[in-house]
């Protein structure tokens, strides 16, 4: 017995319906699995595998003897992502402040101070005790947006010593990302911002590794799938000796303090001496043994990202602690320049080692009178004494004679020989030194061409001015005048050199004319084995061709300065017979400021191992403020007991 045939069409309808449903499912599955299967396969793989960047530790920085100057340490920090705090910000930060034993205002200040990537959590507390970290992880729901994090931090076992040489690191800036130097870097990368951290960045930074992890839906790691291990950064060994560096910094600080007690007769009061710098160089290979610049910053403040407030404090400080004066600043060298003038005179033949000038207290050329630093004068002065006594008039004569010759050359329609400038350039002045530190100052060696170019640039200002001086400059400021040669001969006027350049120049004086590229990096080392990956070989920067005997004559004069000249008070008691020092004091005038005190030197004479240049900004006379610092540095270099740096009595130029 069958159901009524009336039901047959209805059953057929149901069958068709069922078939349609199955067809719909099949075609959808065909699309998902056959046509789009690959895309979904990728999505499944993206679900399964999570890539974690394993940060490569940055290389350490060691001193010449292998002592760690900059190391790394892992620190447990508490970070906050403000975007996750939402409307619970007050509540959560208040709770966090109570836990960390600080105030909410301070946490807010840390967050406001943060300058790094918005993608990262902002560290608000470092070196947090484990108990507090446990509390945070256990009560994670009460601390949304707050997380404990391990930070790889730079560590400075020696404190702020050599801060300018070391530099600091920070997050790469948008401008740096565009720079060719930083090609291949990614936003958020930590890069060197100054010092060797910057110049050796590509060695110091490692290559971050990648770890592939298989994670389940709960985000738990099921297993590690492999990946690429991080390649730690290489260690950098410096030529700097940390002991020496610390001594040099101490001597400089003492020297500044001593200068501040010296009366400034012209301006009244005492010398302000707000800053000072020193360079210790091995003339035999260009290695910098110490490089100090005061005031300096504390690199520890930059660890983990410097706060806005701290950076502003450094940037706005009148002493410019971020400036590496030894390398990045240029000043008139004053009388320390005289050896180079003497060499120019010897080469041009305007003087001989034996020739003398009468040295009264002043020098007049035309209507123009220049005064020596002592109105008494020195009588008849030869080359040696001109250096020993720092006789300005000797060099005025020299400069004037060269000037006369140059005028004659020009009058004949030729080009002025510019002997002073030519000699200067041979010793590396007026050119950016090829040093492995950033932003080395080029300095200025003024020439006729330089004067004209400078005048063209500044003419508008001059001609808009109403003072007599400006009116004169507007008209004739392009002209190289007799006075320019005189200024140049005694290291004044527009001449500017950096302390580093002066050290390199004195190195060439000591070394028979050969100068080496100055460098602070000695070798890049493999951190695991200590093997040298890349050594910094000494490279000759230049060989100054000077007439035979000229260097010896100048050297003789320089050797007499600490023994019996302007630096003699500073070197009183120093065993010059065992460790003969050759040097030159300098007192550079930069009115209205107090004079800048210089001492440039090398030792031991005959077999020079060290060049020492000291400069105290507005420290008064070179002999009284700079030479004593240099003496203390030599005492340290030669293993002698270091006597306290006190202001000397010499008031020479």
């Amino acid at each position, binding site marked *: *017995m069958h*159901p009524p045939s009336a*039901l047959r069409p209805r*059953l057929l309808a149901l069958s068709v319906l*069922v*078939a349609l449903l199955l067809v719909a*499912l099949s075609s959808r599955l*065909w699309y998902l*699995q056959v046509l789009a299967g690959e895309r979904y396969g990728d999505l499944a793989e993206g679900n*399964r595998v999570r890539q974690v960047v394993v940060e490569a530790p940055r290389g350490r920085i060691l001193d010449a003897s292998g002592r760690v100057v900059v190391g790394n340490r892992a620190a447990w920090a508490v970070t906050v992502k403000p975007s996750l705090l939402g409307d619970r910000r007050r509540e959560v930060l208040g709770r966090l402040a109570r836990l960390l034993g600080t105030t909410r205002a301070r946490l807010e200040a840390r967050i406001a101070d943060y300058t790094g990537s918005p993608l990262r959590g902002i560290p608000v507390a470092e070196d947090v005790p484990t108990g507090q970290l446990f509390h945070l992880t256990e009560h994670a729901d009460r601390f949304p947006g707050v997380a404990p994090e391990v930070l790889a931090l730079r560590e400075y076992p020696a404190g702020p010593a050599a801060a300018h040489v070391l530099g600091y690191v920070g997050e790469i800036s948008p401008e740096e990302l565009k720079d060719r130097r930083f090609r291949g870097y990614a936003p958020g990368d930590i890069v060197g911002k100054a010092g060797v951290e910057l110049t050796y960045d590509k060695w110091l930074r490692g290559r971050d590794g990648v770890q592939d992890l298989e994670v389940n839906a709960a985000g738990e790691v099921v297993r590690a799938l492999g990946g690429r291990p991080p390649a730690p950064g290489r260690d950098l060994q410096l030529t700097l000796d940390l002991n020496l560096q610390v001594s040099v910094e101490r001597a400089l600080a003492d020297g500044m303090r001593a200068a501040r007690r010296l009366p400034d007769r012209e301006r009244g009061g005492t010398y302000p001496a707000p800053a000072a710098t020193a360079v210790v160089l091995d003339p035999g290979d260009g290695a910098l043994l110490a490089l100090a610049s005061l005031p300096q910053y504390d690199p520890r403040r930059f660890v983990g990202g410097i706060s806005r407030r701290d950076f502003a404090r450094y940037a706005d400080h009148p002493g410019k602690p971020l400036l590496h004066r030894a390398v990045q600043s240029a000043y008139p060298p004053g009388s320390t320049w005289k050896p180079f003038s003497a060499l120019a005179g010897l080469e041009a033949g305007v003087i001989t080692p034996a020739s003398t000038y009468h040295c009264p207290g002043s020098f007049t050329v035309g209507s123009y009178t220049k005064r020596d630093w002592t109105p008494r004068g020195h009588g008849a002065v030869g080359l040696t004494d001109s250096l020993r006594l720092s006789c300005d008039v000797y060099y005025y004569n020299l400069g004037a004679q060269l000037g006369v010759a140059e005028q004659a050359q020009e009058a004949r329609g030729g080009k002025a020989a510019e002997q002073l400038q030519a000699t200067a350039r041979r010793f590396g002045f007026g050119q950016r030194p090829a040093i492995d530190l950033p932003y080395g100052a080029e300095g200025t060696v003024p020439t006729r061409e330089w004067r004209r170019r400078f005048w063209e640039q500044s003419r508008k200002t001059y001609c808009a001015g109403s003072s007599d001086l400006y009116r004169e400059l507007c008209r004739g400021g392009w002209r190289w005048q007799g006075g320019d040669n005189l200024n140049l001969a005694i290291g004044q006027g527009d001449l500017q050199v950096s302390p580093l350049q002066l050290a390199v120049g004195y190195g060439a004086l000591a070394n028979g004319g050969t100068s080496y590229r100055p460098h602070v990096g000695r070798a890049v080392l493999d951190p695991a084995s200590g093997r040298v990956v890349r050594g910094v070989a000494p490279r000759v920067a230049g060989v100054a061709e000077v007439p035979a005997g000229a260097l010896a004559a100048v050297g003789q004069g320089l050797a007499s300065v600490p023994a019996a000249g302007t630096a003699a008070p500073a070197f009183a008691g120093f065993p010059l017979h065992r460790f003969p020092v050759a040097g030159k004091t300098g007192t550079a005038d930069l009115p209205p400021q107090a004079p800048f005190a210089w001492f440039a030197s090398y030792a031991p004479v005959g077999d020079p191992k060290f060049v020492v240049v000291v400069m105290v900004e507005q420290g008064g006379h070179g002999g009284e403020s700079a030479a004593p610092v240099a003496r203390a540095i030599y005492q340290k270099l030669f293993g002698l007991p270091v006597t306290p740096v006190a202001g000397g009595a010499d008031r020479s130029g």
Partner: protein
Amino acid sequence: MREGSPWRHLDPTVVLAALALATLGLLAIYSSTFAGLRAQGLPEASVMRRQLLSLGLGLVVMVAAMVVDYRRLQAWAGVVLGAVVVALGLVLTPLGSATNGAQSWFELGPWQVQPSEYAKVGAIVTLAAVLGARREAPGPRRLAAGLAAIALVCAEILLQPDFGTFLVFVAILFGVLLVSGVQLRWLLVLALVGVLGTVGMFKLNVLREYQKERLTAFIDPGADDGGRGFTYNSRQALIAIGSGGVGGKGYLRGTQTNLQYVPEQKTDFIFTVIGEELGFAGAMALLALLGLLLWRGLRIAAVARDPFGALLAAGVVAMLAFQAFVNIGMTVGIMPITGIPLPFVSYGGSSLVATFLAVGLLENVHMRRHL
């Protein structure tokens, strides 16, 4: 078996297809649970073994449902309906327990019983009995009686509330009505009432918030679901199935499955295991088995000796087809997420036993088609 015994007329295809589907289910349940169980230090097959027990019980129930002539059930339809109404009423009292926001379970020691699963079969029996009582097509009176019975059951289901199961009842009603020969305009009216009712329930807050969200998530997958993850569910299910590709990733080798990316996988989303690990081939095999079973069911409806038998078979087919379509449809993203299990395959004792009960009734109709 003696000559003329109904057992001689057993349709083996139906039973074999059902068993094959249940076996696929066991394999998929093992695959989806072993990793999680291992992580918890539990026996890897423990969940699968529970389903195996349910399958055993289901087979017993199926055989039992074949023993007595189905026609005798017609007289007992009132009792069946009464039992269903009472059970669904009791589950709403504190005797019942809730999961996923629906008050739908009885806890009986280690076993959980979901009366709504059996109620589906009960509704088929009741509807078939009322609408198939005479040879001629049902008139308004019988229609009203059938609708009243279903409405009562549906009201109880919606009180749990279990929107998905409610839809299954609507599908059963539709299937049985269609085949009963009721005038097509009644069907249209019914469809209209169904649509209006659904919209009304949405507007009148009969549905729980999460049920609405599931539907909204389907309509607008980009919408923020407040972290409840209905779009997440559906997305992970799509990834699992799609990434299976043509041949699948291999049994027990599905990454979405092993790493538990698909929530509710062993129950509502069991099809994703087959899609991911056995690929398009496996999914097609499953659909083929389903199609085979449904085809046989429709055939049984066609050869039944009386309208009651035919409607019984049609109801079972409607139930199975609708559940399978909605369940697989939601895993492949063409249907909203509703908590409807995949018959034979999803983990769940009540669903499995009730489904085999339905298969037993189907066979019963086939076995006695000549008597």
